[in-house]
């Protein structure tokens, strides 16, 4: 039997009972489509979480005050709650540790902010100009805190788009433009600051919302807001490269332990968050999530495969006489096996193809209506193709062998 004959026979056999073939195929369509769509959701989430983490800044190390663990207890004091990091520590990191691209000092608190009749409770961060580079932030309109602002403790403020909207929107439904804010005076904790810039919108990220924040010079924050304790709430360090992050982290740990006079690393009064390790943790979480989704979808694929087997067994029974005839006129076992395998593979392959299209469409609709980022990946499509063909072979094999094994005499007599 040549390939084109096989295809012709298969096509006519599958199209004889269109409704049944269609319904059986539907099982595979749903299975493949849900695998494609759910994996797209999983991978989309993974990509968007990674993008969020990366938007915090490139090659970022976040140093926070506070003991990682107190000896003898299991209670961990809150990171940032202790007063152990000083601007001198930050300067020492910048000057003594190799492969450091930039260091930003931060001291922040939450305060009530007032502009005319509007007020908001938001984070106010005293920082240095290098914050822009370290945290991958950009100014939309105006300018950021400058070096002279820091040295002169100028009362200037750079606000995030959420703050802009909260304070400067003319009414609840209207949106505020940066021009409305630049040059205006706002009160933070009763102290007047002049707005000099508005940052670009970055969207919420896992740890802090950079859109809902006010940036002021570090010195001004310490002088007017924090009560001049001289301690920092966070030091952000940008390593020169991804590969240098571990070395930079180790060197900073050593340096700070030495500066703080601590000999036992487990007693450290600061902690360092490594962005790369956050990304890999998040990736493994979303990876598990994606696998879980794919596994659930695979169950429906399995059910679809059983549907194929069921239909093929029915077909073999219905066509017993035909099989007997084919054998009587010289078809070999291999010919019969191939014919029935081809039928189930054609069903699953067509189902798989439709499933990919439907899954793709589904992923598109999911992101359209729910806003969840989806990403349909080509390797999964290729995989889906092979899986659907494989299902055809696996679930078609038993019925095909059964057909091929029929005794022609009994098959011809079958009523």
């Amino acid at each position, binding site marked *: 039997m040549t390939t084109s004959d096989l295809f012709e026979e298969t096509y006519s056999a599958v199209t004889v009972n269109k409704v049944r073939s269609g319904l059986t195929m539907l099982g595979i369509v749903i299975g493949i489509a849900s695998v494609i769509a759910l994996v797209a959701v999983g991978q989309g989430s993974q990509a968007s979480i990674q993008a969020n983490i990366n938007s915090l800044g490139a090659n970022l190390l976040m140093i926070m005050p506070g003991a990682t663990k107190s000896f003898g207890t299991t209670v961990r004091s809150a990171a940032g709650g202790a007063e152990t990091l000083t601007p001198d520590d930050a300067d020492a990191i910048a000057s003594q540790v190799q492969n450091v691209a930039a260091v930003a000092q931060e001291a922040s608190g939450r305060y009530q902010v007032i502009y005319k009749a509007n007020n908001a409770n938001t984070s106010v961060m005293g920082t240095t100009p290098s914050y822009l580079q370290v945290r991958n932030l950009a100014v939309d309109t105006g300018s950021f805190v400058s070096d002279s602002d820091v040295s002169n403790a100028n009362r200037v403020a750079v606000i995030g788009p959420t703050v802009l909207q909260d304070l400067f929107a003319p009414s609840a439904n209207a949106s505020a433009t940066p021009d409305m804010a630049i040059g205006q005076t706002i009160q933070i904790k009763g102290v007047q600051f002049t707005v000099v810039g508005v940052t670009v919108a970055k969207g919420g990220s896992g740890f802090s919302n950079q859109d809902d924040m006010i940036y002021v010079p570090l010195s001004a924050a310490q002088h007017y807001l924090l009560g001049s304790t001289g301690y920092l709430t966070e030091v952000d360090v940008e390593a020169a490269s991804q590969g240098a992050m571990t070395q930079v982290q180790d060197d900073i740990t050593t340096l700070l332990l030495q500066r703080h006079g601590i000999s036992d690393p487990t007693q450290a009064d600061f902690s360092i968050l490594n962005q790369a390790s956050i990304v890999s943790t998040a990736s493994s979480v979303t990876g598990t999530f994606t696998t879980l989704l794919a596994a659930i979808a695979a169950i429906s694929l399995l059910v679809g495969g059983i549907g194929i087997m069921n239909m093929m067994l029915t077909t073999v029974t219905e066509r017993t*006489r*035909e099989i007997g005839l084919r*054998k009587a*006129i*010289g078809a070999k076992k291999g010919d019969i096996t191939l014919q029935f395998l081809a039928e189930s593979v054609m069903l699953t392959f067509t189902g798989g193809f439709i499933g990919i299209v439907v899954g793709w469409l589904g992923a598109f609709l999911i992101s359209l209506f729910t806003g969840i980022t989806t990403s349909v990946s080509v390797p999964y499509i290729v995989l889906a193709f092979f899986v659907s063909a494989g299902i055809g072979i696996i679930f078609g094999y038993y019925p095909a062998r059964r057909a091929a094994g029929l005794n022609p*005499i009994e098959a011809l007599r079958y009523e």
Partner: protein
Amino acid sequence: MKQDIIICRDIKKAYGTGETEVVVLKGITFSIKEGEFVAIMGPSGSGKSTLMHILGALDTPTSGEYFLDGKDVAKLSDEELADIRREKIGFVFQAFNLLPRTSVLRNVALPLVYANMPKAEREKIAEKALDDAAFPKAFWSYHSNQISGGMMQRVAIARSLVNNPALILADEPTGNLDSRTGEVVLHTFQSLNMQQGKTIVLITHEPYVAEHADRIIHIRDGNIVSDEKNAHKRVARNEKDIAI
């Protein structure tokens, strides 16, 4: 002198073993020459169906020898039997056994599909076979389930001709037909036999049908009871205008 197409020597067939053993054929010996038209007759249970299965290479005897066109078929494997059927035997069944929802032409060409013959060549041979079986050209593209029983059996006869078999084996070919269409089918066999010299073995339980052959072999209880030339051969009427 014509060659022997079929030589059967002491063919025995038993089913089951030990105490449950049932001997269906108890030693059948006969031969059929090329171009003969032979009817094998017997009541049901006589073993004629079993004999037909062995002659048709659908089954092998428990013991004995069976030569078909010079080839020893008695001890072949299933796959080798399939080759024999494809190359040397044309079957005509009582129930026609055509593929439904498939054109007449495609039905006739089906055996050649398994011989890996290209489609164009296949259809040419199938068309000639349909002509030989006196099947009207107007219905070639009809589906096999759209034509009458007599027509269907002629399609089946055409199908049995396409592989140019050494032997055409017809199992109760008129059993599902009324006497008038049965007559047409018998006429087709007779003209194939007389004009083209085809060797035909017809299995039937009806004396009237058997009388269309040149020679009649009677079987009873697994033995041949008589094997003689048909002294008063009937000639089937050829009715051209059978209702479709």
